[in-house]
């Protein structure tokens, strides 16, 4: 299956087609703790620092329950950190930043069921840009076309399959034209083939729009395949134990890249590292 061009984007000019200008995303010693059931503090994140260049694709891997989602939500401004700060460009993140969009793990729940697919996508930008009805609809159609769902605008999210719902969520996220797209295990609950499709889709869109992408996943293959760099998160209290550059050539191909010796070597190295950490690092 050739690859990157499964979802051929419509060549459009103007706002819907142009790549977004990028800023540097700086995560500076973020820590996050919660109140435990016994009143004591549970430290989910110990200290995490990341420096993400504009337009870079960064993956964060770690075992389940190690605080990956928490970290991402702190970066997204959906949660306040207990210590440290996040900076996007010149601005500190103290709430939901305007140019950052979070792609939810529970994508089917993140699509609003009382709205059609089209309305869901328009929800991402309608309040910000005062577009006319026609302009808004056209923009919406462009983004749906990018994910291959141009004809599904009038459907309801619950009428679509899981993979299609995730594509709507992606279209919606991109319709907001973010500088940074944060993805929280977005492909973990679709079947393997759909996942490969979505990988290609994300890479394609990312190649086009050049937003900064931060992906959180437990799937090492996915991380290596998609990203420029892979950061490894430990168990809680979570810290970054290693950051590896994938240095794999782009564009990447679903099958060939995954079979390349470089890929396999990286995979071997990462898995070994993670499994070893699992043995001696796991608490509870």
């Amino acid at each position, binding site marked *: 299956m050739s690859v990157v061009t499964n979802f051929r984007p419509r060549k459009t000019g103007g706002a819907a087609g142009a790549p977004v200008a990028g800023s540097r995303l700086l995560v500076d010693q973020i820590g996050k703790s919660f109140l435990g059931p016994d009143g004591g503090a549970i430290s989910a994140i110990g200290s995490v620092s990341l420096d993400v260049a504009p337009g870079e694709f960064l993956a964060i891997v770690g075992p389940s329950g190690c605080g990956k989602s928490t970290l991402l939500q702190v970066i997204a401004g959906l949660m306040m950190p207990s210590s440290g700060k996040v900076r996007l460009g010149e601005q500190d993140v103290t709430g939901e930043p305007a140019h950052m969009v979070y792609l*939810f793990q529970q994508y089917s729940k993140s699509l*609003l069921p009382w709205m059609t697919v089209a309305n869901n996508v328009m929800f991402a930008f309608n309040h910000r840009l005062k577009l006319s009805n026609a302009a808004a609809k056209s923009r919406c159609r462009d983004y749906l076309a990018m994910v291959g769902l141009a004809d599904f605008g009038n459907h309801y999210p619950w009428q679509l399959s899981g993979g299609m719902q995730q594509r709507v969520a992606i279209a919606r996220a991109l319709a907001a034209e973010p500088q940074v797209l944060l993805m929280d295990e977005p492909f973990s609950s679709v079947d393997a083939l759909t996942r490969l499709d979505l990988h290609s889709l994300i890479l394609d869109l990312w190649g086009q729009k050049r937003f900064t992408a931060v992906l959180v996943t437990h799937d090492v293959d996915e991380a290596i395949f998609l990203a420029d760099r892979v950061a490894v998160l430990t168990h809680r209290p979570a810290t970054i134990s290693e950051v590896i550059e994938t240095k794999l050539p782009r564009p990447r191909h679903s099958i060939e890249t995954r079979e390349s010796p470089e890929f396999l070597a990286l995979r071997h190295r990462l898995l070994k590292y993670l499994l070893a950490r699992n043995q001696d690092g796991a608490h509870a």
Partner: protein
Amino acid sequence: MTQAVWDPGARSLPRLRVSRWRDTRATGVLLVLALLALWEASARFGIVQSTNWPPFSTVMVTLVAGLGDGELMPLILSTLWRMARAYAIGCALGVTVGFAIALSRPMRQLLLPTIELLRPIPIPAIIPPLIFLLGLGDALRIFAVAFACFFPVVLNTFAGVRSVEPVYHQVARTFGVPRMTALRRVVFPASLPFILAGLRTSLGIAFVVTIIAEMIVGNEGLGNYLVTMQFAMKTSEMYAGIILLTAIAYLLNRLFIVWEAHAIRWARLAEAMGGEPR
């Protein structure tokens, strides 16, 4: 408790027909018809004292006649109009206050105790004292009905807004949707199932309390009609009124359910197809 349709050990033929017959409400319908026949017979043959016990057929004739000759329709409209105004007021207030206490902790601390304090008051009890303040007319009756309607709506709205999926809130936030827009386009639709459930309960309450109010004060509406007919010993008319009230109550509920199903069809279907898709 399922009956085996076919008992392989039995010597007789499969009791297919009998089982299916049992599974319909046929027996129940027969029971109702039998009771109606009993009513008719006992009245016609004087088994029960005849003045208070007109035959069912006579009651139905009276009912149809009353509807036809314009005696009952104005009463129906009078009651329904009274109820509608009170229902609208009670529900509007209920939804507004429900949102207020759900979204603001100080509001909740301020208002919820008072609401919980006023809720157990038996609604007929507030009517006599308020006669002094509101007179014997619609103002009093509408106030009483609106008062009764308020509580199911406010509590259901409160519960509904609070039970909105956190993900929905986060979606609004990550796209930078301003608060008012988020309330209108996310929180309100998301809590609609609960709100509508409260509105449906309130509808039934509104109808009952309207009847009660009409029975206790004033001389308008179907409630008053019932009491008047009882007083005048016009039993056919009285029973006709009871049947009429039952029919109206049933219709109101049915219509609401149909409308509700349409208004939140996304909720039913989303649930049916929903959860995490595989």
